[in-house]
């Protein structure tokens, strides 16, 4: 008999049961209700416009921005899955790696030998993304360009944007050109240099 499995399964059932009693919060209900009202109001407005001005006016009417569009992220498609920040004076005070480059649909990260991960925050003027070949080209003014592919091993110079132990984000003004996707795992690392091991 696996006592450990039994205890973990029992404890898991307990949290599931406890959470099953958690009621969805009203905040979202209110948000959805607002959406519905907006959508219905827009529909009503469309009907009104159609009645008064006619079908031609309807086609010329300005579209209403959706809540989803209004809250879209600042990701820039040209950088693909890269997290990219606006150029700023660097702080090449720490090193991360060597780490193996992992390129996923929405994230580029580095994994080192002990399994810890970093998400490089590249400078916009030093990095390009080629969607066709899925390669990153890092071009620092002081060195030759480096073409980086999935599986390559590289070393980053720069500074962590988190406390190593507790993943506490350091209070720093970062102007994102392509914000890291919320699903990216790993320590956010402001990258100021890249070298091969």
């Amino acid at each position, binding site marked *: *008999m*696996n*006592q*450990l*499995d039994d*205890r*973990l*399964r*029992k*404890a*898991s059932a*307990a*949290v*599931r049961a*406890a*959470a*099953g*009693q*958690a*009621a*969805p*919060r009203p*905040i*979202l209900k209110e*948000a*959805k209700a607002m*959406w*519905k009202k*907006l*959508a*219905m109001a*827009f*529909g009503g407005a*469309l009907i009104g416009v159609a009645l008064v001005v006619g079908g031609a006016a309807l086609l010329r009417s300005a*579209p*209403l*921005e*959706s*809540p*989803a*569009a209004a*809250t*879209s*992220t600042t990701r820039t498609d040209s950088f693909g899955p890269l997290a990219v920040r606006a150029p700023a004076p660097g702080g090449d005070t720490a090193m991360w790696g060597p780490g193996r480059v*992992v390129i*996923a649909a929405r*994230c580029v*990260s580095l*994994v080192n030998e002990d*399994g810890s*991960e970093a998400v490089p925050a590249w400078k916009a003027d030093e990095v390009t993304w080629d969607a066709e070949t899925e390669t990153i080209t890092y071009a620092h003014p002081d060195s030759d360009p480096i073409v980086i592919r999935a599986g390559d091993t590289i070393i980053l110079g720069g500074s962590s944007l988190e*406390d190593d*132990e*507790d*993943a*506490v*984000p350091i209070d720093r003004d970062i102007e994102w050109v392509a914000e890291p996707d*919320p*699903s990216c*795992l790993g320590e956010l690392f402001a990258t100021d240099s890249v070298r091969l091991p």
Partner: protein
Amino acid sequence: MSVATTEYRARSTVSTPRDLPRIERFDAFYRDEFPRAVALAYALTGNRAVSEDVAQETLLAAHRHWDRIGTYDQPTAWVRRVLINRATSFHRRRTVEWRAVLRLASRGANTIVPDLEPEDAEVWAAVRELPRRQAQAIALHYVEELSLEEIGEVLGCSPGTVKTHLHRARTRLIGRLGVRYEETT
């Protein structure tokens, strides 16, 4: 991708009454996911108020990006990934906990998720002392009952790596909880 999701993406910049199915679709997703997200967060944070806040914030993030996330084959995988990121982040836990304390103080002791029995709480306390990845793998395996492949998809690693995380986690838990475990192949 279904025809319906393609249509949602194509109409992403104009809100009309026809958007209602998209809202209803998120509504169903939210209803299904909220208790599961709370359970997973509860295991990883050990705090019922925090777990609800983390679950809520994660699903609100999904709501904000639903035009994109709603088109994924498995939006749940995205939610789990974001959730465990947040749940295991000490900073967020502290921040969210502080807000939760303020909120609970303002409405009295009206907590929603009940406490666990001491022996179950002890298990999760031991899990939370594990390295981050091991704790996440254990919670996804036992609370969410995910396979090695599914956990690997959430954590962004291979099933073999997940197996290693689980093995190391169990080895540590055996010592901390004083129980037996016989690995099966």
